[in-house]
């Protein structure tokens, strides 16, 4: 923690950056913190409650953040995949951001809930994590904690759902998506939802019904899942942000699995790893073209 605070203080003092985006202990658990003054650097923390993917604040949509000057951002390995995603998709120049990686032993599901990391509280993306030590960062801080406890719940739920009949799956999703209030929290917290004008906001023509009825909700969430194919960093922020607790990562994970099986692509911390959506090879699998 001290290492992180001292680094942030140095970067702000010598003018390397105008803001360090990290986490602080807020009135209600851990929350994102925008540190603009060296004297505030001691507020920065890193604990298993540092759930939020701060890479979302690097999106070009956040013009107000860019006004603070050059940005340093604190990332876990999983968050760093989103930084790479933004660079890969030319939304961010790597040299425009100072990436501070933190070695991570997993985070909890809810930054506002219990602080203790157990098999019950661990965030779903953590068990089996392959990026506990972030790569391609400008700075790397902290000691490497032991691996996260528990197992991935979504993977289990997904395989159960895959075994059920199409009718049962349809019922499951209609029930889940009927809860959606179209607050767009899933979209707004997502680092990869950076479109200046989202398809869902277009009205001429109105591609997606804006009404929160099952028809509109299904259209919205399936479209979003498809738009995340080969792009989703897997951070799970959409699911965490959902005020109605819709298991959105089931959709994203399923799509990610299809992409992995078909094109061998997995969300990566390396911007140079080409995503299937933006590349073409003559020997690409074509079985899906009938």
């Amino acid at each position, binding site marked *: 923690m001290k290492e992180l605070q001292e680094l942030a203080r140095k970067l702000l003092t010598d003018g390397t950056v105008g803001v360090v985006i990290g986490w602080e202990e*807020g*009135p*209600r*658990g*851990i*929350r*994102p913190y*925008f540190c*603009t*003054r060296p004297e505030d650097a001691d507020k920065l923390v890193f604990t298993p409650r540092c759930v*939020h993917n701060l890479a*979302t*604040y690097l999106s070009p949509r956040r*013009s*107000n*953040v860019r006004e*603070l000057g050059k940005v340093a951002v604190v990332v876990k390995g999983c968050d760093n995949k989103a930084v790479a995603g933004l660079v890969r998709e030319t939304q961010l120049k790597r040299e425009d951001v100072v990436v501070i990686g933190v070695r991570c032993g997993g985070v909890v599901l809810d*930054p*506002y809930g219990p602080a203790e990391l157990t098999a019950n509280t661990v965030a779903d993306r953590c068990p089996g994590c392959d990026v506990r030590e972030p790569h391609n960062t400008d700075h790397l801080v902290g000691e490497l904690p032991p691996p996260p406890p528990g197992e991935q719940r979504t993977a289990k739920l997904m395989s159960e759902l895959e075994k059920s009949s199409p009718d049962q799956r349809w019922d499951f999703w209609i029930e889940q998506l009927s809860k959606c*209030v*179209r*607050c*767009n*929290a899933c*979209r*707004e*917290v997502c680092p990869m939802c950076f479109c200046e004008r989202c398809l869902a*906001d277009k009205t001429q023509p*109105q591609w997606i*019904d*804006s*009404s*929160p*009825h099952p028809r*509109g909700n299904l259209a919205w969430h399936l479209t979003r899942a498809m738009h995340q194919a080969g792009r989703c960093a897997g951070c799970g*922020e959409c699911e*965490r*942000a959902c*005020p*109605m*607790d819709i298991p959105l990562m089931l959709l994203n994970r399923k799509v990610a699995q299809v992409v992995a099986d078909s094109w061998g692509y997995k969300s990566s911390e390396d911007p140079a790893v080409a995503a299937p959506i933006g590349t073409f090879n003559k020997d690409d699998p074509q079985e899906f073209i009938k």
Partner: protein
Amino acid sequence: MTVKTLTTENLSHLAAALLADGTEVIAPVKDSSGKVDYRAVKQAAELALGEALPRKSLKEFFLPQTECLFYFKQVKNDVELTPVPTTFGPRIVLGAKPCDAAAVDILDRVFDWDYHDELWFGRRQATTIVTLACPMVDEFCFCTAVDIEPATRQGADMVIVPVAGGYHVETVTEKGEALVTKYAKYFSDGGKQAEADTFRAEAKAKVEKNLGINTKDVRAWLETHFEDGLWHELAWRCHGCGACAAVCPTCHCFDIVDESEGVNQGTRRRNWDTCQAGKFTLHASGHNPRGEQCNRCRQRVSHKFMIYPERFGVLLCTGCGRCVRACPGGMVLPEVLRRVNAAAQAAKTEPVTEGVGQ
């Protein structure tokens, strides 16, 4: 006001009797994952009274998140409109959170302002609200700071207060009286006033510790700080989603859309909207008077603590704390109010030129 006692068992019988009589019963219900929502119940056993705060407030039963206003159909060179009914069958809400009932009363004012909203008042008229006095949910409850208390009668037709063995019952309106009269056999005479008063006082004292502000001073500060660093600072963290507005019992802004359904026909709908979304104020010209998130963060606070009280004499906030609990970015409205209040108090003793934010 009639005072009665209702045993826990009889509350269940009352719910069953209401259902048997064809009254729609809305109550907090727990789902398989333990989350609580207000929902129309099919049987009395579903009631989960006194559990956690429902995820969404009561407003969806008066202002549904999507509702049809009318159907349209093109017939040759004319358009045929089919209206929707504006009268509704009898409904009762059992065990509403007092802050949620108060919100409905607060919103009556805006829905009867420049236009008398038939759909809102149709549902209002059909619905009897029975609130269950609240012991406080957690440290983000702040109803007492916004002129409401955890057992407020505002918006309620009948209030029930937990006492040993059941509830102390107080009727507030004629609708509440009618309920007690029609289902008299479930209620016993006389209340447990002393016990209920103690419950109320204890809950109030607990919530008062969470936040103490002078809302008049907050309003005065807002009136003079349209431009302030605070709004920029809030906007850094804010994602600009509408989770806060969706779960808020008093956020009532809506969008109206025409959805085509088939050829030459469709539905005009009213959907929840939020001032936190950039699209909310986007003009057809491309200009957006609230083009930045800082403008939108300011709007939400200003509407609740300056604009609405100016227009209707009441705050547009019941202190339920749902916005705090729902925010993925860690925004905390009581914290904002505390800071604004502190700045307003400081301004009383010495004129300040600096704002609240960095």
